[in-house]
């Protein structure tokens, strides 16, 4: 590709795209991500969008953002601060410019910087001429609207339609800036708009115009290349958390030979699980969009009772509504997987923002003593493994399992190395068809799981239900000792899942005196902060927990080995509370509840502070 700019090689780039919710920033971001992943970069993304579908145009509330980090080495997060900001209007500029790295590049759609738009966000005059900002950042204003209009002259499109393809212009420019393969993109546009030829043609024209602009306008001086990352050999695809999670569920169903039924009620940020699962009907994985959250889990329980694997996907408020039904599934001991994609709470809270504040709800949010296995996914691709594992435990132990994800993990994406099919663990299923000697609550000696007897099986008619049952026959029982025994054995069965749990991942400088502990989607930030801290010689180890209930058996010893234990989480200290209560260890708690993931430097600063104070 001929170019009149220098090509500079860099290790990593963080790009943030920001515009109105209607500006197509998520699509643009996803496309650039795909191109970067296909070019072999390691990538991590973080979409950040408002809860309203279309907040008033041009307002701060309506700004939708997408951050993409691509690199020639392993990366763990979408990056703390962008190197490049693409701002489509004054609101997007105002909301994001403060995050841009000093010296960073801001590509701005100048056409949107008209009086009316400026006034909406409280600018008296255009900030693009502000000498302070221009000193600090490289601001490149471009009349994108005019560029797009020129590209689409004689196409017979309305002004509105022309306005809508701006994002493809910006995408073309970014493709030039980072040397991405334009041909693949043109092909993708053709496929995506196969039914709307007119839009395919115009979007391609606009995309190419953006690309050509970079090459000819001499505004940038240089373009950049990020070499392919050196990763483990294998097949890869870029995947978002919710997609990986569904793939894991379907893989487990396929491996088990059972059907799967997902009962779900749409809720942000879990709805994509319902959408994705609805495309796997030919795998025997079906969906029922229920009338509410309670019906959704009812459907899943009914499906499990009928011999399928029942699954639910929800978010915090939905999990709250499922509490009673979870207790039922616990007492009748049926396999079930409930996925909770956490968002900011309490109540409706921050539907599109991330948080980890449903941990204690997942552990304790039911009436009575009703412990359940609870595990969490640590990254978008890890959702596959976590979902597969959740199904495996649910069927093997005949228990509901709660799988925790969060908005950051669910909507983020990263390259995923496709697993080796031979290495997927077997899914054990306890279906019994032998009537001789059958007792409803007779248990497997090792797992304590009861048999799964499916209605329709001759000679084994029996009744189950939410009333306490005799510990063997399954008949209703109010005998005090029996209730105590049943509570004990149900808890013991769930605790027995420890036998399945690998030792927690320990990483970093294991011989220092500081340990940072985390769970779920904060994995990447903690891992990177640990690396950064050790580069400064701080001697920090990182322990990541896959399982919150039961805890891995090794955890006690690990916690007690370190003088400083810092538990980092996006809530007000729920895991720290659990660790203190369980292990009587005086852990320190670092928390954040802003609806945003940790920045690496925030965690690093906390480590420095902790070491400073403990050495003082």
């Amino acid at each position: 590709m001929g170019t009149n700019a220098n090509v500079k090689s860099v290790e990593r780039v963080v790009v943030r795209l920001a515009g109105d919710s209607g500006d197509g920033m998520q699509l643009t971001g996803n496309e650039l991500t795909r191109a970067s992943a296909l070019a072999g970069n390691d990538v991590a993304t973080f979409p950040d969008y408002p809860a309203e579908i279309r907040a008033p145009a041009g307002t701060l509330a309506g700004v939708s953002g997408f951050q993409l980090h691509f690199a020639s080495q392993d990366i763990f997060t979408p990056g703390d601060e962008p190197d490049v900001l693409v701002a489509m209007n004054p609101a997007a500029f105002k909301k994001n410019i403060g995050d841009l790295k000093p010296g960073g590049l801001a590509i701005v759609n100048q056409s949107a910087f008209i009086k009316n738009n400026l006034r909406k966000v409280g600018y008296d005059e255009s900030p693009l001429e502000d000498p302070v900002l221009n000193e600090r950042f490289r601001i490149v204003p471009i009349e994108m609207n005019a560029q797009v209009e020129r590209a689409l002259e004689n196409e017979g499109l309305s002004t509105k339609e022309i306005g809508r393809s701006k994002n493809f212009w910006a995408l073309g420019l970014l493709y030039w800036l980072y040397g991405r393969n334009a041909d693949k993109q043109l092909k993708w546009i053709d496929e995506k708009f196969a039914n709307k030829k007119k839009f395919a043609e115009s979007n391609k024209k606009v995309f190419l115009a953006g690309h050509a602009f970079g090459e000819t306008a001499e505004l940038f001086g240089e373009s950049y290349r990020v070499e392919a990352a050196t990763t483990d050999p294998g097949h890869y695809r870029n995947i978002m958390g919710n997609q990986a999670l569904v793939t894991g569920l379907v893989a487990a169903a396929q491996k088990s030979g059972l059907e799967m039924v997902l009962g779900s009620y749409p809720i942000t940020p879990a709805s994509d699980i319902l959408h994705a699962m609805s495309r796997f009907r030919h795998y025997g994985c079906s969906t029922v969009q229920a009338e509410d959250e309670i019906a959704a889990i009812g459907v899943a329980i009914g499906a499990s009772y009928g011999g399928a694997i029942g699954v639910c996907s929800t978010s915090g408020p939905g999990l709250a509504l499922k509490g009673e039904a979870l207790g039922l599934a616990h007492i009748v001991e049926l396999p079930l997987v409930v996925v909770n994609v956490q968002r900011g709470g309490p109540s409706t809270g921050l539907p599109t923002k991330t948080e980890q504040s449903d941990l204690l709800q997942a552990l304790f949010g039911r009436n009575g003593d009703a412990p359940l296995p609870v595990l969490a996914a640590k990254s978008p691709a890890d959702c596959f493994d976590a979902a597969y594992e959740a199904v495996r435990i649910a069927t093997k132990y005949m228990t509901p399992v709660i799988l925790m994800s969060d908005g950051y993990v669910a909507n983020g994406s990263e390259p995923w190395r496709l697993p080796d099919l031979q290495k997927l663990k077997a899914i054990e299923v306890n279906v019994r068809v032998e009537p001789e000697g059958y007792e409803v609550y007779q248990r497997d000696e090792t797992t304590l799981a009861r048999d799964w007897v499916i209605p329709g099986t001759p000679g084994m008619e029996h009744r189950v239900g939410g009333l306490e049952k005799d510990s063997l026959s399954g008949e209703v029982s109010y005998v005090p000792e029996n209730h105590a025994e049943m509570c004990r054995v149900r808890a013991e069965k769930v605790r027995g899942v420890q036998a399945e749990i690998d030792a927690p991942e320990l990483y970093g400088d294991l011989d220092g005196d500081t340990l940072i502990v985390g769970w779920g989607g904060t994995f990447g930030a903690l891992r990177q902060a640990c690396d950064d801290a050790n580069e400064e010689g701080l001697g920090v180890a990182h322990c990541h927990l896959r399982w919150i209930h039961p805890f891995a058996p090794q955890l006690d010893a690990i916690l007690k080995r370190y003088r400083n234990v810092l538990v980092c989480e996006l809530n007000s200290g729920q895991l720290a509370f659990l660790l203190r209560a369980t292990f009587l260890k005086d852990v320190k708690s670092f928390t954040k509840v802003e609806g945003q993931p940790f920045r690496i430097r925030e965690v690093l600063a906390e480590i420095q502070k902790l070491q400073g104070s403990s050495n003082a």
Partner: protein
Amino acid sequence: MPETQPLVTLKKKDFQTDNDVRWCPGCGDYAILATVQKYLATTGKKKEDFVFVSGIGCAARFPYYMNTYGFHTIHGRAPSIATGLKVAKPELDVWIISGDGDSLSIGGNHLLHILRRNLNVVILLFNNQIYGLTKGQYSPSSEQGKVTKSTPRGSIDHPVNPAAFALGAGASFYARTIDTHAKHMLEVLKAAHEHEGTALVEILQNCVVFNNAAFDDYASRTTRDERAVFCQPGQPLGFAKGERALDFRKGRFKAVAHEDATYVHEPSNAAAAYALAQLRYPVADAVPMGVLYQEQRATYDGLFVQDTKDAKSAGKEPTLHNLLHRGDVWEVK
């Protein structure tokens, strides 16, 4: 329901369990239990193919007394559990047992949706117009002004009309019967069971302890000959020992002399069914019993099975390899 298996011969007692039945002596539930057991023995179907799913309430204990598969679930949610069960195993013969509190109060939402979806199940709604298990509070079907433990000055709630609710929700089958009328109940159960889709049967059930004789004005052994209309397809809607009948005039039913009635009952007539649903004692002279409404419509489970078949014939071969290798895959060597 299409018969796919050879008929088996079972007796009523084959459907009984060893459990002591624990309803209050004289409760209407006993008669319903006996009639259902008797009916099932006539179907030629096997015990293991029946599943009784219930919510919470006196009626919801029913599955414990049936020697079939049974699931006593949580308050109001039986329809959702039955939905999951039917989509996982459509060949099962699923019956939902519920009461007025369970179905019309806490579970009202689920009743609405199961009816519109038309899941192929029978729902027996034991309506005793009171909360029995919690010892005597008014229910959503209790009449206004009812004095109960929670309404010492009389209830101010306007009651729900189960028939009108069902029709409004898009039920494909609604029938009403009486606990003490085994012969009629047997007929209605048969019609409900043979219906393809959600068959809602409201059973007027006497709670002898907390709401005794609630239906005696028109449904007792002595009054029903006078004030109940036992609807039969193709027959006039006669009552008062054949002296009077309901005639459908200008969108509503009017009591006339039997010989003056020209309307004959047509369960598929939705307008007539709406009008019949409005007839409540004592405002109306007579209360209709039997199948008030029935229409043929695709069932949810039938469509569900079809959807799966369609997806299977259209989709790429469902292998683990194809599952993982979707979208843009690249190889690192």
